[in-house]
């Protein structure tokens, strides 16, 4: 339940942002990460960015979650 998936911020609009994760674009809430900028990577939990992370880390984590979520769906 505490799953959090990495995503890249591609557009910011006040308290929301467009984020891209695993090839899917999604609007997320960024009010919990006030320092976030376009191009940053964040981890998303239930529609909210909860922490800013480094790009390399985002990429490595992303692969793991992709596999995990694919399996969960089957």
């Amino acid at each position, binding site marked *: *339940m*505490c*799953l*959090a998936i990495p995503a890249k911020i591609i557009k910011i609009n006040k308290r929301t942002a467009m984020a891209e994760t695993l090839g899917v674009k999604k609007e997320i*809430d960024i*009010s*919990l*990460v*006030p320092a976030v900028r376009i191009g940053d990577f964040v*981890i998303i*939990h*239930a*529609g*909210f960015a*909860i*922490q800013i*992370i*480094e790009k390399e*880390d985002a990429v*490595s*984590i992303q692969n*793991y979650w992709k596999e995990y979520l694919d399996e*969960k769906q089957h």
Partner: protein
Amino acid sequence: MKSSIEELTLSLTGNKLGRRINIMEVCGTHTMAISRYGLRQLIPETINLISGPGCPVCVTPAVDIDLILEITKQYEVSLFTFGDMLRVPGTESSLYLKKAEGRDINICYSPLDALDYARENPDRKVIFLAIGFETTIPLTAVIVKRAYLEKINNFYIFNTHKLIPEALELLANDKEIKINAFLCPGHVSAIIGSEPYRFLADRYKIPCVISGFEPEDILQSLVMILEQIKKETPEIEIQYKRVVREEGNPSAVKLIYEIFDKSDSTWRGLGSIPGSGLKLKEKFSGFDARIRFPVKKIKSAEPAGCECGNVLKGIKKPFECRLFSKTCRPESPVGPCMVSSEGSCAAYYKYERELKNIKI
């Protein structure tokens, strides 16, 4: 550079402590990963990995399910919650069964969905069944604050949020299960950081490592724990540096305590734990569904024969429950630990049931 699984298992096997140690993971996603990758079978038998109360759905007591079911029975409300919550058994029914009977019970992906619905449907009374640990609590705090600022007066929360460090203190004091170390949750710690666990190392001399979710992360965390045990230097270490900072996410923590005060909370299996829950501050009490929709005290009981209480405390392993894989299966769960995909019983059922060295 992360070490490989082979290197890490070798390092664990070579690190002979000469005694059995109990390491408790307190995160449903860790429980899942340990079962899924067969890590229990990779590490020496002297390292006993036990699952703790790390799944929010599993630790929600039957009485909370009964209360919310009663609210949806007595009042015209629209209820929103996360999917896992629906199948958790109350004393006589579940949200899932009542939804099938036509009650206005909805699954949401984000708490924002519930608030949006309330905003768009001012004639409906909307309740968000707020569940989760520190990872999720700031999200609820955001929507309550937003509802307050926007003066949305048809929105409420039924709050079952719980705090992890307080539960760990109870477990650290437990005489029945001697915990030698904690594998601390990654995403809870992304919010609270490492400081809130400090008392475990200082006062209880219990090593703690905040771990990531990949098999290498978990094995690496175990290596770090063994090192601490060997050197007798209990501390709070962060293995999951990719996401967790010492200070956590201070904005999120600040917001939690702008909206809530700490309170006691009842955990399935663990009972009432002082300071392990949250209560809306007086200023926001108008959003409290328990106050706005009072119902009579109901007689609640945990499912007969279900050992979830002992499973959540780490006293029993899921396959030591008489109902495991017999009457209790993921498609017909008796207790909550079989409901959530991150519950210990569901994880053991899915991945470890057929392993030769585990008797069922």
